[in-house]
């Protein structure tokens, strides 16, 4: 009985939140213009490649994009095949150099603009109930708001003479130089070296996505029934749905790009402190951290689960910033993010964290 009462209460409150939540979710979606563009770019590239695969147009898939004898191999595949065969394969080396150069310029942009798992994620989002979507958004929102508030309090302390306040350095850091993905990458390469074949390629979600297209098409066009028709999509579901947060916790490709991406100084989102609500007006905002798909907190890097090395250049933060303080300049001189915040004096008078 008591339980029932609780659920009714919960549903009432969620309904109340629903009205507000739905409105703000739509507003957010409208703001993230690049997100729609990214989905479109990813979809067009994927459909093009899938059609090419089915029609036999020789241009490859994302595991080995190219035509004739030119190909740009997946960097993990290139490494794997060279370790497994213990030979230097010229095309693999060329691909590795090319990809490293691209990651150096565009960071992990592949992940948010081209990777088919991004599309699968969108499809998942689409089928998620509005309630679940709201819950997820609210959870992230409240976590980040708390961080932002904490930061402002320490800012105040800084003004009062406590030296380390604004830099946030006395806060526990949530991220290290390596994380679980790097362990998966190491495991994949170790297994490849021990057993002599590119092990990860068997389960790579990018490869499996194209394999799904092929296996479905073959079933219809040639009546080619196989267990793979069920197993291949099932493997995808296990990786992307059951193992939560594949991209930032498991994906060894993301780990590989992270290793190079940390040296990138181009197109890195940069905050203009004169415009940023937190620095210019001492208002807690943290919208940029909230929308970041890569779990980076640009305003307070120490609090992010990941560092700028993982920036996928998705432009969510640029789009969402209420004061347009974030830009992605072609070249960022020094490493972005470690600014010591100085607060203009007039604002200090009413330095109370403001939450909407």
């Amino acid at each position, binding site marked *: 009985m008591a339980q029932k009462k609780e659920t009714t209460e919960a549903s009432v409150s969620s309904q109340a939140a629903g009205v507000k939540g739905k409105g703000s979710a739509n507003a957010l979606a409208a703001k993230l213009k690049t997100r729609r563009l990214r989905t479109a770019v990813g979809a067009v590239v994927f459909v093009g490649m899938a059609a090419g695969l089915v029609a*036999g147009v020789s241009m490859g898939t994302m595991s080995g994009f*190219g035509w004739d004898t030119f190909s740009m191999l997946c960097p993990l595949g290139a490494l794997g095949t060279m370790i497994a065969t213990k030979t230097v394969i010229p095309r693999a080396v060329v691909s590795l150099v090319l990809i490293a150069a691209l990651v150096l310029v565009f960071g992990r942009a592949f992940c948010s603009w081209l990777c088919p798992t991004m599309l699968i994620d969108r499809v998942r989002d689409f089928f998620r109930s509005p309630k679940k979507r709201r819950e997820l958004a609210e959870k992230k929102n409240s976590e980040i708001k708390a961080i932002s508030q904490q930061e402002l309090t320490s800012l105040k302390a800084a003004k009062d003479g406590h030296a380390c306040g604004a830099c946030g350095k006395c806060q526990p850091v949530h991220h290290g130089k390596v994380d679980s993905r790097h362990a998966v990458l190491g495991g994949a390469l170790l297994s490849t070296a021990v057993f002599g074949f590119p092990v990860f390629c068997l389960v790579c979600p990018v490869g499996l996505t*194209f394999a799904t297209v092929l296996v479905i098409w073959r079933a219809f066009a040639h009546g080619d029934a196989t267990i793979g028709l069920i197993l291949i999509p099932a493997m995808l579901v296990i990786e992307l749905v059951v193992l939560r947060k594949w991209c930032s916790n498991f994906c060894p490709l993301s780990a590989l790009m992270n290793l190079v991406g940390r040296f990138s100084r181009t197109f890195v989102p940069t905050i203009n402190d004169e415009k940023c609500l937190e620095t210019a007006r001492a208002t807690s905002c943290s919208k940029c951290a909230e929308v970041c798909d890569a779990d980076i907190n640009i305003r307070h890097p120490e609090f992010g689960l990941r560092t700028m090395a993982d920036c996928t250049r998705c432009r969510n933060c640029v789009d969402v910033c209420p004061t347009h303080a974030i830009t992605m300049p072609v070249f960022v001189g020094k490493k972005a993010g470690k600014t010591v915040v100085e607060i203009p004096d007039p604002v200090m008078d009413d330095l109370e964290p403001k939450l909407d």
Partner: protein
Amino acid sequence: MAQEEKKDEAEVKPAPRGGITRRGLFIGVGSTAALLGLGALRYAGHNPLNRPPGGTDEAHLVSGCIRCERCYEACPREAIVPAKIEDGLLGMRSPMLDFNTGNYCDFCYEENGGNPLCVAVCPTAALELPAAFTVGNPETGETGDIIIGTAEIDPRTCLAYRMTGCRDCYDACNYSAIELKDEGGANPIPYVVEDKCNGCGACQAACLSLSSGSIKSTERAIVVRPIEA
């Protein structure tokens, strides 16, 4: 800059600052174990498959192939298909030749002057041919030195053994690898000359035994068997 950071880190308590979290460690160890387990599939092996030209060294193919699917696209005759899981998890999605669809391999003699396109596009050299090679030549009837497999006739299902006079495989073969017993007689029966067969699959592609209706079998009466490595 990096040094400065380090110094600061040293000063502050070594709380959970940086490093890998417990959850991260769990994921890392678990995934490594899973990937090592997956690697052990190597010993499970798989059913022998007809590989495209340059892929007959099975160990090399398995080591090199990253399942990028470029050879399927490149094959002008759509004879290369992904291997199925039923043939073994290790070989899943690796390239194999399927002659049951009516397609066979001519080593790109017609399409690319005898330079197999699948080998040309393979970015990881999993399909690899020696520096000098000759392919089967349908004009002169030479067998060439790229051997995919050898054709084998099953007398229990072959229509010719049922006195139907079928000789479709004999007609399909470009390399005189199929000859007829009692040629010109009432019931010519085909047999394979193994030395001349390069496993191109034209005979299997042409075989009618399964489509004739009354014969129950899982495979055609003439099939190409991969050569033993």
